[in-house]
């Protein structure tokens, strides 16, 4: 990809050139290059012109007939029940009391005031804060001795689309990156050799994303 001709072709077909740049680029080509550009353009055009594959007219109905009604969530079931069973005065009062009790119990361990927040002395699994003075710096690490490259992807860099965050290889097979992050909660994963996305096995928590992967979660205080 270091070849300037290849790079120019990428920019040309990705629409990264302005009309003027495209015209200059085409004008600068020799005969062989122009032939290659034309052939590439023609082959892409053949793909673009492929017609749609016709969908059977009753396809949606077939799908709908195969799905089972989903069991509604607890909140929705409660709402439906309440709609069907209007509450009397004492029931509403009792429900409010229970709700208040739940809030008190669950909220019994309130978050510390900002002035009392301290970084954990124990590293949070694969992520640890780097020194109290450097507040909001997190160190991400992954043990991957066979990897050629490891990069960090997550909420904070558009999952690799905004900025590349490579990890540095250590002698012991660990890969490390220090990252300044505003306080918050982030999902992340590691990208190995530009191909394989793996979660952090030592993360403080994992959550499933929309694509069936398990993202690691880190909380930066």
């Amino acid at each position, binding site marked *: 990809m270091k070849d300037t001709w290849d790079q120019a072709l990428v920019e040309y077909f990705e629409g990264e050139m302005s009309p003027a740049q495209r015209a200059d680029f085409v004008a600068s080509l020799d005969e062989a290059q122009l032939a290659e550009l034309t052939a590439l353009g023609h082959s892409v055009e053949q793909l673009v012109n492929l017609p749609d594959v016709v969908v059977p007219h009753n396809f*949606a109905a077939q*799908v709908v007939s195969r*799905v089972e009604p*989903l069991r509604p969530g607890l909140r929705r079931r409660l709402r439906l029940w309440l709609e069907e069973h209007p509450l009397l005065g004492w029931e509403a009062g009792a429900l409010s009391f229970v709700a208040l009790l739940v809030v008190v119990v669950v909220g019994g361990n309130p978050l510390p005031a900002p002035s009392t927040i301290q970084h954990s002395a124990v590293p949070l699994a694969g992520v640890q804060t780097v020194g109290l003075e450097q507040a909001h710096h997190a160190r991400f690490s992954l043990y991957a001795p066979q990897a050629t490259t490891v990069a960090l992807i997550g909420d904070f860099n558009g999952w690799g689309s905004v900025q590349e965050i490579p990890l540095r290889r250590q002698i012991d097979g660990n890969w490390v990156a220090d990252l300044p992050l505003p306080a918050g909660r982030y999902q992340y994963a590691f990208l190995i050799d530009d191909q394989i996305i793996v979660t952090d096995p030592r993360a403080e928590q994992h959550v499933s994303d*929309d694509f069936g992967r398990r993202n690691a979660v880190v909380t930066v205080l």
Partner: protein
Amino acid sequence: MCLNGEKQAYGVLVERYQQTVFNVVYRLLGNYAMCEEVCQEAFVNAYEKLAQFSGRSKFSTWLCQIALNRGRDVLRRRGAQDIHDDLDDYGDVLAAAETTNPQRQVEDKQTQQRVRHLLATLPQQYRELLVLKHIEGYSNEDIARILGITVENAKIRAFRARKMFRQACEEGMS
């Protein structure tokens, strides 16, 4: 409403996205009968997972990834060699060409068959890229999400895929 599982509302969603899903899965598998089964499974699977769809990505992107994964499962189980292109068995399954000239229709059909067969000769990862990018018109960001790669990687893979396809076209002509 649909996220709460209403079946009829889901039918509307299916109708909205079925064309894209059919196009992608058929180009991946090259077999219409299997494509139909895989697309049905993908939509049913997506319905069952609706609660997991957080809205951070486009629904079509999420759906397309589910369908691609189902298609890949079939390729792994059956092996690409055991799957044959049966589209011609379905008569006019392909949308009719706009032209009314019979001679032109025959030529168009032959060209489309040739392109389909050439596409099928490419390695799966490059075929997927060409289908998503140049046939379905997904952005590099969406392709990266669907395939689980970086945007930069999607560009590089697209570049290689175009070169491979052009070479296949040349070899097919000679």
